[in-house]
């Protein structure tokens, strides 16, 4: 699992590359727990190269959602592969998180 972050216009663009399972999701948890990220109003997560997610990966996002919401930070997922989006849908997480089709849509929603 490789995670890269880019800062642009008060926005963190986090790119996930690889597979998020019980072994690799620890890295994601560390990235999202970093207090530095809370300084930004928007976190856009590029999922184009996220090839797999298990409950451990979902659990990391679930565990940070409330904290982000309380801090009024917008967390938006985009470019998600169908098979990965399906895993969010099985648990109904697609209704509780913001998942959009591409970067442009993510930017638009982030700026609303």
């Amino acid at each position: 699992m490789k995670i890269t972050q880019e800062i642009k216009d008060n926005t963190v663009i986090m790119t996930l590359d690889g597979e998020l399972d019980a072994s690799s999701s620890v890295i994601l948890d560390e990235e999202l727990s970093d207090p530095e990220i809370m300084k930004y109003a928007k976190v856009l997560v590029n999922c184009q190269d996220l090839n797999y997610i298990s409950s451990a990966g979902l659990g990391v996002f679930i565990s940070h959602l409330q904290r982000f919401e309380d801090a009024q930070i917008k967390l938006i997922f985009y470019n998600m592969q169908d098979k990965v989006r399906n895993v969010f849908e099985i648990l109904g997480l697609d209704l509780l998180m913001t998942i959009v089709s591409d970067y442009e849509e993510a930017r638009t929603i982030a700026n609303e």
Partner: protein
Amino acid sequence: MNNSIRVSCTKKNLKLIRDFVTEYLKALALTDILMNQIVLAVDEICANLIIHANHEDPNKYLTLKVQTVKDQVKFEIADQGRAFERNNYKEPNIQEHIKMGKKGGVGIALVNRIMDKVEFITDGTQNTCLLYKKIK
């Protein structure tokens, strides 16, 4: 085709298990989504066995067998760790998890929703989880 694998109880081996299942399923020409769902269900059970039942002890092992019987694929996952207590299992409330910032506890829900049948059998020290999924 080799249809079983035995791995030690470390989280790093989950990738090995997923690759093994993917390789087996390739011959069945499933859709990407169905293939991913089945791989995920097996991964979730194995992760639970490795982490909770066997406490990531590399000296302990689990065995995974897969076969296609008529129109369904069947997985048999065996270990000798602490048995899963199905009677104590409660379906998670995701909104509650979000509120509490809870990390775990949604894996078995995924398995139950993906697979057609999920069984847990304990025979002495041997635990076996059976997963069935219709593929046609």
